[in-house]
């Protein structure tokens, strides 16, 4: 079993497809992950399941991997096993709050795809403003805090960090492609990349809010929490005042248009 605990999760799922359903049952969302290089032991450890649930999960995994053997399941080493209730430290809470605005924008994507008219100036403007939101807020304002500050507290070779960085890069590729699609007035390609970005970020945010951030919070010392908080303040100040407000205004305006409350683009 030790050998499989140290195997990348994607490899295990390909070899033992039944594991996908088992992991899904425990809300371990590795199946759609674009990288999948996390080791099974890390995947189980990072999800912080209650001890009995973790033993049950490992028993079921062992049942799939070794159907004819009675396998002894080693315990996954854990620094702190804490309550599943999500209570973030102040700097991590700030990142979670920024996700709320990004999720509001993502919720508008189906409406944009359904109604967009690339021959119309106002629609092109709205979509390019959306691309500016993704680049200026979701990426420069939010992801930069992770890449330049938060992830520096960890080994950037950790699979979970590499997965997040890969998601950021894929998101940038989608935005580049969707801007090109607006310029070429190609609605099919635009829809493909808008939707691709929406799917990617929705899953990415869920992974961060429910798995990565709680795991990070469990490992941060009080001193590190204070340091992160101060560095996030500095980062926001460097970006200039009003970034949050400016992009909130954009999302609110787009929401009003989507609800038909303000026909003016």
């Amino acid at each position, binding site marked *: 079993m030790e050998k499989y605990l140290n195997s990348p999760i994607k490899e295990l799922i390909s070899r033992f497809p039944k594991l996908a359903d088992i992991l899904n049952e425990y809300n371990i969302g590795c199946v759609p992950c674009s990288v999948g290089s996390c080791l099974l032991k890390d995947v189980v450890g990072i999800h912080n399941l209650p001890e009995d649930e973790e033993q049950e999960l490992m028993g079921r995994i062992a049942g799939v991997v070794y159907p004819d053997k009675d396998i002894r399941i080693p315990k996954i080493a854990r620094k702190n096993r804490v309550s599943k209730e999500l209570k973030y430290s*102040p*700097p991590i809470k700030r990142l979670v709050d920024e996700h709320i605005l990004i999720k509001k924008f993502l919720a508008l994507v189906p409406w944009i795809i359904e109604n967009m008219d690339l021959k119309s100036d106002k629609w092109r403007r709205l979509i390019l403003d959306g691309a500016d939101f993704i680049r200026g807020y979701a990426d420069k304002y939010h992801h930069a805090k992770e890449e330049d500050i938060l992830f520096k507290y960890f080994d950037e070779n950790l699979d979970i960090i590499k997965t997040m960085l890969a998601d950021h890069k894929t998101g940038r590729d989608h935005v580049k492609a969707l801007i090109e699609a607006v310029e070429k007035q190609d609605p099919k390609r635009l829809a493909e990349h808008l939707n691709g970005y929406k799917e990617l970020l929705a899953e990415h945010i869920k992974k961060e809010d429910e798995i990565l951030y709680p795991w990070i919070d469990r490992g941060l010392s009080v*001193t590190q929490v*204070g340091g992160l*908080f101060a560095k996030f303040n500095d980062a926001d100040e460097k970006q200039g005042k009003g970034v949050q407000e400016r992009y909130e205004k954009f999302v609110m305006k787009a929401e009003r248009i989507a609800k038909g409350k303000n026909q003016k683009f």
Partner: protein
Amino acid sequence: MDGCPGSRMQDFRKKPEGAHDESGKRASQLAQWPIQLHLISPMAPYYQKADVLLSADCVAYAAGDFHKDYLKGKSIAIGCPKLDEGQDEYVEKIKSLIDDAKINTLTVMTMQVPCCAGLVATAEEALRSAKRKIPIKSIVLTLQGDVLSEEWVS
């Protein structure tokens, strides 16, 4: 069992096995003097950019490993939110720790008795009136020294 939980008599003399193990000796982790909130100066060097522990007086008597688990690596100030006079000065002192000493974090340790929550409220009031913002953590102990709750409050 009626009356104020803060002053109600309770007897904990019967301890579980192992609770009286006195082997080994611990060094004090106190790295400063004075510690009482009225007496401290926020300008003292040990407060500058420090992680500060603001502890209710009774906490150190309840927590068996107060020095090792909570005081180590931190600067401290203590007070009683129920009995101390001049608590407006406490707000000003904590505000000065935040703005002038530019402390990194504030951890407020209190007992589970209701009157003790006043110390967290005092810290939050100081934070609201300060120019800088810092993370504040609240740790509440049971009367027998176990952690009842531990959470970031702002």
